């Protein structure tokens, strides 16, 4: 299958990419790993006239710790992040990255592309919600910070301005008494998840002092619920509490029935994934080492 014809532009600096995208306008797309865009183009869901290839821009794939802040370049691939010291230090980053698609897609797909596609099935954005990540974005008007929770307006639609690009992702290294987990369920490796859940918990003497929960593949955008978080915040994490919070966030979800499952099935999967992720995050807070793998049918 061939994509529709397009002009190819290779750029070697961010400024070049932005001015090229601005000049070419609506019919141009930024190309990162191509693991979403090229598939869409081959299926003719999208027929851009111009591709601006970001992949040779130096310095945009660094993964660093600056003080207690984690900084990940937009062009860092799923594989690079998963193998990084950051993933070794933060288990939920490893859980999330290691279960994205398969080895081939992980070696090309980028975290910036996962965010930029505004696809509610992509895993990184869900995890980043629970880490309160902030995106650095640069466009013709300059550079600004966008909280990850504000990036997506609707399915496949971000608030980015024309020719504005995500250049990096930043979040605070979770403190000692805080831990997260990322759990997902899918039909096989090279398939988007049927449902996924990210959790980040902070415990103080058995009391949950802070919590974030987010659901992926559970609606047109990432699903969060203040109500669910309020049930857990300030309380002891009992089975009853966790179940109540899971019910609250699953009630906020609007899973779309598709070939990955009926709505009720997806709600049932989400419910058990929330309980599992909270349980794992809680035990990690208490110092346990627990490996998490994506589950297949």
């Amino acid at each position: 299958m061939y994509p529709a014809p397009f002009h190819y532009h290779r750029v070697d600096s961010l400024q070049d990419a932005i001015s090229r995208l601005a000049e070419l306008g609506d019919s141009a797309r930024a190309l990162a790993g191509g693991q979403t865009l090229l598939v869409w183009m081959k299926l003719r869901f999208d027929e851009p006239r111009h591709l601006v290839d970001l992949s040779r821009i130096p310095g945009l794939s660094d993964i660093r710790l600056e003080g207690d802040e984690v900084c990940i370049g937009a062009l860092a691939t799923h594989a690079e992040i998963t193998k990084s010291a950051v993933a070794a230090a933060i288990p939920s980053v490893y859980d999330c990255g290691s279960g994205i698609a398969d080895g081939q897609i992980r070696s090309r797909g980028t975290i910036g592309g996962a965010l930029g596609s505004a696809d509610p099935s992509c895993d990184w954005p869900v995890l980043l919600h629970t880490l309160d990540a902030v995106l650095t974005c640069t466009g013709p008007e300059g550079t600004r910070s966008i909280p990850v929770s504000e990036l997506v307006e609707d399915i496949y639609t971000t608030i980015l301005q024309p020719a504005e690009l995500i250049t990096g992702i930043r979040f605070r290294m979770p403190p000692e008494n805080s831990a997260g987990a990322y759990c997902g369920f899918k039909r096989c490796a090279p398939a988007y998840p049927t449902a996924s859940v990210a959790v980040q918990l902070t415990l103080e003497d058995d009391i949950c002092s802070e919590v974030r929960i987010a659901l992926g593949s559970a609606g047109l955008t990432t699903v969060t619920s203040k109500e669910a978080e309020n049930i857990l915040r300030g309380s002891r994490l009992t089975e009853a509490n966790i179940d109540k919070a899971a019910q609250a966030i699953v009630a906020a979800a609007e899973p779309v029935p598709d070939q990955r499952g009926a709505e009720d099935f997806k709600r049932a999967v989400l419910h058990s994934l929330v309980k599992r992720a909270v349980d794992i995050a809680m035990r990690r807070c208490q110092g346990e080492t627990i490996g998490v793998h994506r589950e297949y049918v």
Partner: protein
Amino acid sequence: MSEVIEKVSIRITINGQSYRRKVEPRLLLVQFIREELGLTGTHVGCDVTYCGACTVLVDDKPTKSCTLLAVQADGCEILTVEGLEQDGELHPLQKAFSENHGLQCGYCTPGMLMSSMALLAEKPDPSPAEIRKGISGNLCRCTGYNNIIKSIQAAAREMAG
């Protein structure tokens, strides 16, 4: 549309040999490999980034060549299944697949071999679970996978010497 699309000059090294060509930007790497260069060992199964039959190594990284433009691989070093054999001798992975019935129709095999190469480069002594994960982006409709796993284990032993 009759707009002229400018071709792009690329230089790609495949199995140690360097090729220069002018290509249309929309040419996929797998088409470059199969149709421009006639190296038909790399297969197309699904054409939608699913089956892994088109897997090649691009600068040592396993890549589905149906989902990479040839222009994106400009300047890269690529290894395809044709590059595994050395001086008429099959690679230990190829021998192991043959000896352990790691293939039936053989359609998935080039992709399986390339994913196995990437796996063994990173984990020279993989567990069965690590092998399953390593080839989880490659589908096989024939073998049921068990003999593929056996083959990769046998090759790992052989390569460790």
